[in-house]
């Protein structure tokens, strides 16, 4: 590793060549206030001018997020000139910003407020005209409010990097510039997949999930029987909202909090993840045996489903017909559970806590109701759950560990837990497929080949004489490669797992925001390691559990015995399976 010698505030340091001043300073113990820059230059347009510093010999102040270090460079951060310039940059941004911070859900995690605080931007020194505002609340998932946009371009870049799509772009010119889908359309009228990756990088409240806390409040107030379920990935990240180290699994505390928030029943979506494996595994084996459409592709991720419907309408028969786990669980709660407990399904209100913004939209799909009753009534993101917990004054870190409700849907296996990370659904499916084909459990239980974070991974397994070729992709940019192969008739796989968000649900668009500036106790490289840490929280829970294969879940067996019959039965199809239809991206 080539290094260069630099000085910061007169002190000598040796740092890696090629770093920006911002990155080098971080390694030397300085957090230069910055706003538009994101991790490893994912977005470094140098546009916000908040990270200005003095460099000896340079003409004027330089933007440290784009300026590389070089040999002998002398950097000063704290001079009055640099401090004043950074403050002025923030004040100029604030002058064109909707300053209703107290009504903004981003309050407390807003990077603009953070840099305003550290640079000392206090009074509104600059007053003037503001850019015309667009407020797009038409999708059930994401709210776009340009009055809070600082034009950093992180969302534009993220959509391209993660999905190769670029739904959002800069449009118009000068003071009228906004970030928007083409024609400043609603995201609803564009081929946006509603994954929320843009939300997870937005420094302000310009892109936020559409909150459904009020719906949950209303249901409780109306005396509904409110049942909550939590996705596997939520437990791996919720603790971050309460200052716990990234990667802390908080399953027990999360359950304790939900019980204190007044939910009548607290279940784990993992139960339905196990159910998904039974249905999807059976579907896969059926397709292999009967010459059905292959490769079969997983259907748990609603972001991915949206992408498929917009861009690969011709490949929809490849998708598993299984609903996503939380929809399955909702359908079971409103049928089996309702019957068992003698409750009218109309009086049940199902809330899903999800790491996802696309799930909010998914639950509104026409295909996601049975006899006019929606499977799921409200979807809250992990962040919204944290807000509810804070609102109730619950000191999360002091909660005891409690257990999910155990009746009917209380059991879950390690296979369900790992659904939350890329490759997890595949591994869970393989554990069961292996058992079905060989009549015994796989010795190692784990299928290491499908783990990791490479964009596309593949494995070929010989199971009792049957060769099963599988592949995994996360982020639509990677998925596209596999899909184009299928379209061209070149795909050699039997089964493909696709997740909308890079990393899978642990890094979903509804998960807690990860930013170095808000995580002073984490290592410098937390932006690079947080996905792995969250994934490990799930893999550790899997290791700890005695039941690690979906088919060994006793309550799943009971559900089939008492209610569904067998996997892919008529009843199962009615409740647990769905349909897809091709859609036009830019509808008129």
């Amino acid at each position, binding site marked *: 590793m080539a290094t260069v010698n630099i000085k910061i505030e007169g002190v000598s340091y040796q740092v890696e060549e090629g770093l920006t001043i911002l990155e080098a300073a971080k390694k030397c113990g300085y957090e230069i206030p910055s706003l538009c820059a994101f991790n490893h230059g994912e977005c470094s347009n140098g546009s916000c001018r908040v990270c200005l510093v003095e460099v000896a010999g340079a003409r004027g102040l330089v933007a440290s997020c784009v300026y590389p270090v070089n040999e002998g460079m002398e950097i000063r951060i704290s001079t009055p000139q640099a401090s004043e310039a950074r403050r002025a940059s923030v004040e100029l941004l604030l002058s064109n910003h909707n300053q209703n911070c107290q009504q903004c859900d981003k309050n407390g995690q807003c990077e603009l407020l953070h840099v305003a605080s550290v640079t000392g931007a206090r009074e509104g020194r600059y007053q003037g005209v503001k850019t015309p505002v667009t407020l797009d609340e038409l999708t059930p998932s994401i709210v776009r409010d340009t009055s809070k946009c600082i034009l950093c371009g992180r969302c534009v870049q993220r959509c391209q990097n993660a999905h190769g799509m*670029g739904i*959002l*772009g800069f449009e118009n010119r000068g003071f009228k510039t906004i970030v928007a889908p*083409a024609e400043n359309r609603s995201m609803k009228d564009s081929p946006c997949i509603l994954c929320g990756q843009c939300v997870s990088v937005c420094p302000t409240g310009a892109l936020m999930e559409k909150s459904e806390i009020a719906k949950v409040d209303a249901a409780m107030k109306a005396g509904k029987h409110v049942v909550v379920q939590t996705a596997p990935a939520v437990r791996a990240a919720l603790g971050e909202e309460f200052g716990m180290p990234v990667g802390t699994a908080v399953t027990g505390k999360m359950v304790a909090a939900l019980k204190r928030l007044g939910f009548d029943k607290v279940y784990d979506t993992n139960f339905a993840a196990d159910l998904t494996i039974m249905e999807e595994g059976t579907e896969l084996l059926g397709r292999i045996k009967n010459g059905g459409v292959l490769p079969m592709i997983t259907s748990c991720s609603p972001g991915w489903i949206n992408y498929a419907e917009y861009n690969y309408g011709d490949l929809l028969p490849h998708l598993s017909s299984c609903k996503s786990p939380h929809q399955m669980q909702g359908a079971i709660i409103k049928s089996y559970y309702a019957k068992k407990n003698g409750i009218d399904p109309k009086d049940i209100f199902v809330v899903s806590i999800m790491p996802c913004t696309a799930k909010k939209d998914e639950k509104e799909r026409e295909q996601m109701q049975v006899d006019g009753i929606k499977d799921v009534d409200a979807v809250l993101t992990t962040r919204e759950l944290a807000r509810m917990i804070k609102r109730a004054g619950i000191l999360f870190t002091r909660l005891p560990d409690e257990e999910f409700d155990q009746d009917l849907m209380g059991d879950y296996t390690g296979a369900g837990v790992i659904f939350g990370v890329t490759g997890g659904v595949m591994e869970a499916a393989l554990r069961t497929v292996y058992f079905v084909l060989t009549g015994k459990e796989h010795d190692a239980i784990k299928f290491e080949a499908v783990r990791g974070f490479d964009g596309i991974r593949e494995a070929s397994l010989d199971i009792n004489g049957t060769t099963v070729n599988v592949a995994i992709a996360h982020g639509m940019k990677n998925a596209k490669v596999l899909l184009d192969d299928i379209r061209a008739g070149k795909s050699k796989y039997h089964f493909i797992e696709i997740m909308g968000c890079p990393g899978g649900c642990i890094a979903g668009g509804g998960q807690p925001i990860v930013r170095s500036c808000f995580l002073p106790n984490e290592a410098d490289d937390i932006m690079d390691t947080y996905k792995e840490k969250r994934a490990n929280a799930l893999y550790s829970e899997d290791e700890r559990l005695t039941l690690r294969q979906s088919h060994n879940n006793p309550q799943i067996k009971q559900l089939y015995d008492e209610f569904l019959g067998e996997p892919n039965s008529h009843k199962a199809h009615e409740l647990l399976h769905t349909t897809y239809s091709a859609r036009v991206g830019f509808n008129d």
Partner: protein
Amino acid sequence: MAHISDAGVTKICEICDRYANEKTPLMMILSDIQNEYGYIPLDVQQIVSEKTGISVAEIYGVVTFYSFFSLEPKGKYVIGCCMGTACYVKGAQLVMDKFSEILGIAPGETTADGMFTIDALRCIGACGIAPAVTINGKVYPKLSVDQVPGIVAEYKALGGGN
């Protein structure tokens, strides 16, 4: 793509193919389409996006950034009034206002009969002959307000439009 004829789609694809080997072909493609059709609506941008892999939002951004590109059809005769500094101090605003007054449209608009569009341009680099106006590429130097009615009449006599 319901709004574009098959021939139109073929033509746009052909324009895209002209620059298949360019590293950054977008400006050239859009220029050719603008010249060929006089405007670049979203349907056309979608075709360009499919051909080039550049997102529709990015293409739309470029189209709305440069005043040379238009989202709406332009008139048969496009009156480009230079509003650069030199032309402006030499009375370009008065000249443009006169065109607006006679044609009954604001800058950026097109007459109902599809004959004329008035565009306010950034400096066109003809400061020596300020104030300058271009009509479909023909340059009118050192224009005074009095000359405007005559020029309009001249083009009206040529006919055309819807």
